């Protein structure tokens, strides 16, 4: 398995990532939901405020109009005004100074400029003009005259409107001077500038930005007044090239890169294209408290994420720790050490697994012990064969080279020795011979008293088996010479043996009862090998090792042999040729053949 970029080999890492991913996704979703809800709420809130602001703005203007017209009404009932108007010729200078004193009384508030106050004749001829602190000429008074015409035609007791006076936006009111009511003896015209101070006062009550702009179609399209910084306000001009806006719908505009929720409203002017009012509030300002809350939520989320990480690591450790322990213990068991059981003091699935693991280890240890013992009782190859395959009765036919080795006169010799010495001598001899046989790939089939029956090419077939049998026999002969020298120095009697070797197809397999099995071979070939061994006792042959014609033929590199003649074999028509192994020294009898 190739570990990919997002693939983790360690289960613990995967578990931690999964848990963290889930928690992070949940917290992220919550955070995004809160954030977008806040923004939606803020926009809605501003939108409502803008609409309230628009009403408040209109109400404020209406109040000023009412204030002006109410004041004008009081003025018109003033005795001295009537007295001044009564004079012929008219004393305009006194009249103007009288209007000035009215203007000072009619400041809307301490900060506001005094209003413009004018007095017109019933024929709309200017009689007097008070312009405290304002640049205004008589030729700027057209809007008043328009308004008077409007009021006179409709027989109105007051008329108001918006217009430019000397280029500045004003709210205008005209009120007839009744003398007495309803006889119109003249007209008062009053005007308040809708200027920076006015916009600021609206901002003070509504916290909204307020901007007045002249009509976009005018050649002198400009900001009339604004609570915004001049450069920011100037961008509004570019925003509204045309005056068509769906009434009462706010929109989000960018000023100096900052989003403002904006409500555009037209301000109808007398005899002129409408001006634009922009009521606004910065989305950032509105969102500031919500953003602080979002930061808190973010902090809590991160803390929760960290806690989740710790919890995930802890849980993952709880799972992976016993797994790692089991894995480590498995390695120990794999090396064959069954001595230490794994200890997991827990009752959960891992505890059960550990218990099962310990039971398995115990089973393995038992099997190993069996294998050990088996190896001692039978040859390792047979033991392996027995352990590997299912134990079955019966066997298979295969070609096997059988070696029989028997000591001469051992029975007679053993009668003159004590049994312990006999067993010791015999075991020493058998051990030396068995080792040589096994080294050459032979398998000890069984010991029959002092005789050895060994197989080559079973249970594992081997075409070189006859050669290995010959080599083993020769080495056995040499080893016996060495052993006899040891015995001689020890003062023990020396030994002599005969070896018969035959190669034949025999039946090999596990034989015996269901409860007790023995791997062996049976067949005439086995008997022949035994008989060849017996023939070595015949002094006429003068050799300790006799091999059959079949073995000789099977050898890949036939050694030098001496033909000994033929022997009759039971069950076979033709006699079998037998040979003594070639005298390369080894085949010479090292002992007198009795």
């Amino acid at each position, binding site marked *: 398995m190739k570990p990919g970029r997002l693939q983790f080999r360690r289960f613990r890492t995967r578990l931690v990532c999964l848990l963290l991913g889930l928690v992070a996704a949940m917290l992220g979703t919550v955070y995004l939901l809160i954030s977008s809800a806040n923004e939606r709420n803020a926009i809605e809130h501003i939108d409502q405020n803008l609409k309230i602001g628009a009403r408040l703005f209109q109400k404020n203007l209406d109040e000023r109009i009412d204030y002006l017209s109410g004041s004008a009404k009081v003025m018109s*009932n003033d*005795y001295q005004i*009537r*007295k001044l*108007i*009564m004079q*012929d010729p008219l004393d305009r200078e006194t009249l103007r100074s009288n209007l000035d004193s009215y203007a000072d009384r009619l400041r809307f508030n301490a900060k506001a400029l005094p209003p413009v106050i004018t007095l017109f004749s*019933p024929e709309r001829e200017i009689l007097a003009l008070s312009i405290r602190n304002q640049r205004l000429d008589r030729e700027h008074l057209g809007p008043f005259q328009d308004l008077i015409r409007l009021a006179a035609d409709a*027989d109105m007791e007051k008329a108001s409107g918006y217009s430019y006076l000397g280029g500045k936006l004003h709210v205008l009111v005209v009120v007839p001077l009744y*003398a*007495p*009511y*309803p*006889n*119109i*003896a003249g007209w008062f015209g009053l005007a308040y500038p809708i200027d920076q101070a006015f916009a600021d006062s609206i901002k003070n009550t509504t916290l909204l930005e307020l901007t007045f702009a002249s009509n976009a179609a005018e050649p002198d399209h400009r900001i009339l007044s604004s609570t915004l910084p001049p450069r920011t306000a100037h961008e509004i001009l570019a925003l509204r090239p045309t005056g068509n806006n769906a009434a009462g719908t706010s929109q989000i505009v960018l000023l100096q890169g900052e989003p403002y929720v904006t409500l555009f409203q037209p301000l109808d002017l007398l005899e002129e294209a409408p001006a634009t009012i922009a009521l606004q509030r910065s989305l950032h300002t509105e969102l500031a408290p919500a953003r602080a809350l979002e930061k808190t939520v973010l902090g809590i989320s991160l803390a929760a994420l960290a806690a989740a990480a710790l919890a995930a690591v802890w849980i993952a450790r709880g799972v992976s720790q016993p797994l790692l322990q089991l894995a480590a213990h498995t390695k120990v068991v794999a090396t064959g050490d069954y001595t230490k059981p794994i200890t997991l003091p827990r009752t959960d699935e891992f505890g059960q697994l550990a218990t099962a693991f310990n039971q398995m280890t115990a089973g393995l240890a038992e099997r190993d012990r069996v294998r050990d013992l088996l190896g001692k009782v039978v040859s390792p190859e047979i033991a392996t064969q027995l352990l590997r395959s299912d134990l079955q009765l019966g066997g298979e036919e295969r070609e096997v080279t059988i070696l029989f080795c028997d000591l001469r006169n051992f029975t007679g010799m053993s009668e003159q020795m004590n049994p312990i010495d006999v067993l010791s001598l015999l075991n020493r001899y058998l051990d030396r011979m068995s080792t040589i046989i096994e080294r050459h790939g032979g398998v000890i089939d069984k010991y029959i008293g002092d005789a050895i029956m060994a197989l080559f090419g079973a249970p594992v077939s081997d075409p070189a088996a006859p050669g290995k049998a010959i080599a083993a026999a020769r080495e056995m002969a040499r080893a016996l010479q060495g052993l006899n020298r040891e015995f001689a120095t020890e003062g023990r009697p020396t030994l002599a043996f005969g070896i018969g070797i035959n190669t034949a197809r025999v039946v090999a397999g596990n034989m015996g009862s269901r409860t007790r099995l023995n791997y062996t071979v049976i067949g005439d070939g086995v008997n022949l090998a035994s008989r060849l061994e017996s023939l070595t006792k015949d002094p006429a042959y003068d050799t300790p090792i006799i091999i059959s014609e079949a073995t000789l033929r099977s050898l890949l590199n036939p050694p030098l042999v001496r033909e000994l003649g033929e022997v009759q074999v039971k069950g076979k028509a033709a006699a079998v040729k037998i040979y003594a192994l070639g005298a390369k020294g080894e085949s010479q009898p090292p002992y007198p053949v009795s």
Partner: protein
Amino acid sequence: MRACLIPLLFAGCLGLTVRAAEGVRIIVRTTLDGKPVADAVVSATPLDHPVPTPGPGNTAEIEQKNQEFSPYVTVIQVGGKVIFPNHDTVQHHIYSLSKPKRFEIPLYQAGASESVVFDRPGIVAIGCNIHDWMVAYIAVVPTPFFAKTDDTGAATLPSLSPGRYRLEIWHPRAAAPVVQEISSAPENATVLEVKVALKPDKRIRRAPTGKGTDY
């Protein structure tokens, strides 16, 4: 109110003749619903012969009683005198800013009586600086042939010698005076009906309602 008699508009029926033997009777009605109009001033100015000079009786009286002027409308010939007796227990300060006669009679006590001579034709609106609701009109006409309609909208001019006359009907609520030419002849009809367009009554109401002059 502006001076309403200045523009001489000869509207409609030129050469309308009336029988002058026992005076000309005029009925003034509203154009809207034909209701009779009281307090309308009807004057006939001779066009074919000189206007007779006013006699010694060219005076009128507008009293102040119950803090109102009475009568509401007064007609005099140019050069006539109006006396303003105060029959109230409070002082009044009457004035006029109308072009034909600007005047004031500063605060004067109950029981006192002041007079003013009106030497130019036109409508003079009179008010009081103390009581905003007080209003009265004096129609100063350039002819001795005038009359004021009663509650039935009828007014009777004194008998006119034959000839053409400029007939002018004015009312405080008239948008503009109705002017027409008539001819006086012995054999013609004596009743003439004239319609005037009236604006809504805009006089200040006192609470409780004072002596109004409703139609």
